[in-house]
């Protein structure tokens, strides 16, 4: 897959900007969906696939998400650029904070900024959840979606770990499979 240096730089910048301007990977994924979607580098279906894969991959979800999208766009070069852009800036900042042993949480201004960032991140995650669910609540899919959602909620209340919940959901999906199931669209570039 051809992806020239300018496009690689643009990918790196987009990942750096969207991952490092919010708190937590879930909000970052939603920002990336929008940014990459505007460039025609990501479809909603591709985003949904990457979100699912990132939850099934060990470690930090947003890093797996970035590797997946980078790989899809430009194989190893894309994966490494996206991974570096997502991980290095935050790691440098955290190492610097650790080096100064800053008790950052005690300053009211820092707490206020964190509170605002958390609120924004919460809203982004809400939008992200809606965007993921939207294709699956139309017509006959709504019943299947409702069943899976109910099972997930019960498992969450039973304090089952997320990975096990996803595996159970996959098993339920296989059992409920029919020829009418909508295809998971290929990721477009």
């Amino acid at each position, binding site marked *: 897959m051809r992806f020239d240096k300018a496009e690689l730089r643009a990918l790196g910048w987009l990942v750096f900007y969207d991952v490092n301007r919010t708190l*937590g990977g879930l909000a970052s994924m939603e920002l990336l969906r929008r940014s990459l979607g505007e460039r025609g580098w990501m479809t909603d279906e591709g985003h949904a*696939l990457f979100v699912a894969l990132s939850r099934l991959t060990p470690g*930090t979800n947003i890093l797996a998400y970035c590797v997946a999208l980078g790989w899809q766009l430009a194989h190893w070069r894309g994966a490494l650029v996206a991974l570096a852009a997502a*991980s290095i800036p935050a790691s440098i900042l955290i190492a610097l904070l650790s080096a100064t042993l800053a008790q950052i949480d005690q300053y009211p201004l820092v707490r206020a900024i964190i509170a605002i960032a958390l609120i924004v991140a919460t809203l982004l995650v809400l939008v992200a959840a809606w965007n993921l669910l939207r294709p699956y609540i139309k017509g006959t899919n709504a019943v299947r979606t409702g069943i899976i959602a109910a099972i997930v909620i019960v498992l969450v209340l039973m304090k089952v770990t997320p990975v096990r919940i996803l595996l159970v959901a996959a098993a339920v*999906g296989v059992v409920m499979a029919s020829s009418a199931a909508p295809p998971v669209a290929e990721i477009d570039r």
Partner: protein
Amino acid sequence: MSVVALYLLLLKATVTSFAGMGSLPQIRQDFVVTQGVITDEQLSQAVVIGRSAPGPVGAYVVAIGYFAGGWPGAIAAWLAMITPALLVIPLLTLLRRFLHLPRVRAAVDAVVIASAVLLLTSVVRMAMDAFDQLTRIFG
């Protein structure tokens, strides 16, 4: 503790967890309880720093690495954080090979739906976290 040992111990924690903070119990066991290279207070500081800084939540392990081994430790921790993410490549390659099968499609769809519902449960926790931050400021 050598940098290689630090990397391997942190990798053990990151590769056996499925979310940024999921590695915390294993890290406490290995670094605080068993090896004694950091204290509980340093572990808490690392968590606060990781939660307060923008970017991946799992990057708190870099603070662990710094406390345990200075700048070389921080670099080893960064490597331990990013290594598991590369596992998504064979997973993606494998999935795409079988994605045309109806049951595989259905399983992926179900995982996407479940992920969305899990996101909604995360919203509840995040909202509570934000409320907690606000009450600490104004309370």
